[in-house]
């Protein structure tokens, strides 16, 4: 890691980087109580840990409430167009290996209009970190159903309830050959920071789904997981190398039954030895997929943490665009091509 005092080069500051170094001068304009504030604060707080000067960090966003994120980070940033942030970031990350590239997106941006770019960025393993703020609703356009809205959910565009099956973002990502897949909560700064740290350490594409409360159009959706009274009973915290247990006293757990299905069980009944030991580094994505699909909806026990973290070749490494232009001699040779003739 570069010495921290060097990280301010050209900024006229000195001393180690702090959260303030990542706060832009723009006034944040999300609705009061929006989960995005907490995510922004956690990211700004975490950034100094990267040990990368702000000018080598880039935030690319799409359209939606989350799209504004780029304006609030005092790094380089681009607020792009709807759904295309992964494409734009792919170009940037391929052309510039020296940058740390982050994408901030939402469930509409990433999973509806930008679904194609998301899955291809994941399968290619483009070196980008994707924060997918999932609030299961369209906020900026004022309350239509999103691809993660649950069946039966009444929204402005579905007055009789959502009829179509929602995406499970993590299962989708795992199906798209993602090498890093995690889930965290807007209201748990500590957990979110741990996940951000793991994602930053990952070499390729990292997808972090953040359950994010929309206080205006979908308030309380994730409260079973985030609020003091219910969270212990419902947060299944995945920790590498540890049996998967949850509940205030760790009295419940996850095991695989003889049919290969994951089940939530009472530890007292099955014994700790029967519980599944979490291994995000497992090559076969089957268990990570099963964990992603463990909860049918977020009002009950739901896993959070790093589901999958495996190594694979990173897209664009050593690309020509990240190097230098060709030489004039090389050009002269190419211009001549194969057979030539001379007119004198």
């Amino acid at each position, binding site marked *: 890691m570069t010495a921290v005092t060097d990280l301010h*080069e*050209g*900024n*006229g500051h000195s001393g180690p980087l702090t959260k303030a170094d990542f706060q*832009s001068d*723009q006034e944040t304009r999300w609705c009061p109580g929006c989960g995005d504030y907490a995510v922004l604060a956690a990211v700004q707080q975490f950034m100094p840990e990267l040990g990368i*000067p*702000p*000018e*080598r960090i880039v935030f*690319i966003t799409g*359209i939606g409430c989350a799209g504004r994120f*780029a*304006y609030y*980070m005092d790094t*380089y*940033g*681009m*607020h*792009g*167009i709807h759904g*295309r942030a992964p*494409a*734009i*970031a*792919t*170009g*940037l*990350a*391929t*052309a*510039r290996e*020296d*940058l740390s590239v982050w994408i901030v997106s939402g469930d509409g941006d990433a999973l509806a209009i930008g679904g*194609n*770019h998301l899955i*291809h960025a994941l399968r290619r393993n483009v070196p980008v970190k994707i924060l997918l703020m999932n609030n299961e609703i369209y906020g900026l356009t004022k309350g239509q159903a999103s691809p993660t809205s649950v069946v039966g959910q009444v929204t402005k565009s579905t007055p009789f309830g959502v009829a179509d099956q929602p995406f499970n973002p993590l299962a989708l990502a795992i199906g798209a050959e993602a090498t890093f897949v995690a889930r965290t909560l807007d209201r748990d700064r500590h957990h979110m920071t741990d996940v951000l740290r793991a994602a930053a350490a990952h070499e390729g594409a990292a997808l972090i789904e953040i359950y994010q409360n929309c206080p205006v159009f979908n308030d309380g959706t994730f409260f079973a997981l985030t609020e003091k009274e219910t969270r212990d009973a419902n947060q299944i915290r995945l920790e590498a190398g540890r049996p998967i247990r949850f509940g205030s006293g760790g009295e419940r757990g996850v095991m695989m039954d003889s049919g290969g299905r994951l089940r939530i069980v009472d530890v007292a009944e099955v014994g700790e030895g029967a519980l599944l030991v979490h291994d995000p580094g497992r090559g076969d994505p089957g268990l990570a997929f099963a964990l992603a699909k463990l909860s049918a909806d977020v009002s009950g026990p739901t896993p959070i943490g790093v589901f999958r973290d495996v190594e694979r070749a990173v897209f*664009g490494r050593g*690309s*020509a*665009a*990240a*190097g*230098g*232009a*060709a030489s*004039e001699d*090389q*050009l*002269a040779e*190419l*211009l*001549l*091509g194969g*057979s*030539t*003739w*001379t*007119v*004198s």
Partner: protein
Amino acid sequence: MSKVVEERERVIIRFAGDSGDGMQLAGSRFTDATAVLGNDLATLPNLPAEIRAPAGTLAGVSAFQIHFASRDILTPGDVPDVLVAMNPAALRANFGELSRGATIIVNEDAFTKRNLEKAGYGDVNPLDDGSLSEFRVHRIPMTTLTTRAVESVEDASTRDAGRAKNLFALGVISWLYGRPTEVIERWITGKFGERPAVAKANLAAFNAGWSFGETTELLSVQYRVAPATDMAPGTYRNITGTTALTLGLLAASVRSRVPMLFASYPITPASEILHELSRRGRHGISTVQAEDEIAAAGIALGASFGGRIGVTATSGPGMDLKAETIGLAVMLELPLVVIDVQRAGPSTGMPTKTEQSDLLLALYGRHGESPLPVIAPSTPGDCFDAAFEAVSLAIRYRTPVILLSDGFLATSSEPWRVPSVADLPAIDPNFAVAPEGEEGWQFEPYSRDERLVRPWAIPGTPGLAHRIGGLEKSDRTGHISYDPKNHARMTELRAAKIAGIADELPPLRVDGDSDASVLVLGWGSSYGAILGGARRVRLRGEKVAIAHLRHLNPLPANIGDVLRSFDRVVVPELNSGQLAQLLRARFLVDVESFTKIEGQPLWAPEVERLILGDVEQAATSTNGGGAR
């Protein structure tokens, strides 16, 4: 046996056969030999849309045309002097375009009952029914003669013999026009070096074809086309529009010292650009085959944000999809080069056929006020200069640039004088850096220089961290702004920046007779046909002036004066009159529109008839061109 040698100034040969017959190969090899001989030339392939249409059918006919001459030529030619037809379908598909007296060389062996039926001749053999009596027909049993020649080659299979008949045909034609054999022989040896039996079989077929020409009494005359003498001194190569375009991009990368990222999604006829650039990894160019057209544009734009040259290429349908990203690039004021190799539309249209129907799309096909430079190359070799200029404008004006090529330019070829690298202008990317030691200095990403160009401040540059996006910017600071007056000002600034490019453009040049009453004004790939048409008119003793637009936006500053200085202005285009409509709207000049929407290039005789007023279509054009 000595044969008569006749001089010819120019010859047009069309090689036609089934798509499996290797006609593109035969044509390309003939082109190489012709180039080395020093003839001027132009070529055009005509491929079926299907990769493997049913053998022997009209749909499966593949053709390659070459026009070569001892003096400058302008197009691959319209009507062939010689048709090589490897089967009945090839004859039937091309016969209608031949003039009386043309030479037809057929592979007689392929005129079987079954092939005649498949070609739609029924049980009548056109070789025998007198329908070709007005042509010089040479019936050569090419399959038999090729098989006989290859029989003697050790280890060569019957299959090798079957596949070598294109080289037999090439041998015959090479003899007929006195092409140097060593160029073709060297190519065969190099191509099949690892398969000696195949190399020998092909050489045997080629030489047998040559010897057949030399000895048969069927061919009594050999033709000579002298090397061209009116070409400027220099080193030449034969080049297609696609190759020239990729080299132009590469040259701009070298002369700007900025690496390039090229992203595209496969689409006919633009895919060849991706193929050629994919081999240039050692030359500062990365390629990404994107998941879709939208991503290709986004990837290129992301690279541009990172201080690289982002380039994407596509054809019409892809342009529709890229529009939103191009609009973003207009707003961001970042370099981006978008190449549109136009093809016949709308929708999937005719993917392998050429058209110039994306002009208004390029100019206006985005929401909001989003002007950008649009330039169009005029010949295959000119694709080099146009691509170089597109990159240069994109970098120096921080703007997306649309380069309008087309299927005809991309696939046709001509001799190209290889430029010297030192003669290519340097392009200064002028990346922004923070001033040193200025306390309290604030970077303003939307400040502008005297040409209204904003700084290109790339990530990684200390002190310049900033955010940009598709939302309207406040003048200078680049902060989000909904201020009404600011939006008006920014709209004007973006437009004025692009309009200002006209200051550096050369004036529109008028060639030909300055005292003519008629001006033919074209753009893009119709250049050769217009020049050729005007030449024909002058040979008749009539006067005509011509001008050709490279820059469609901004237009050259003097174009209004040029238009108003002629009694009659004729605008031929391969669309419904898009440029004509634009000129009428902009300059209130009653230009005549000539339109051709057949998926085929414009040809010189059409332009000749047009100038002479001998064209019905021209008379109908006063209804406003493309507005129909």
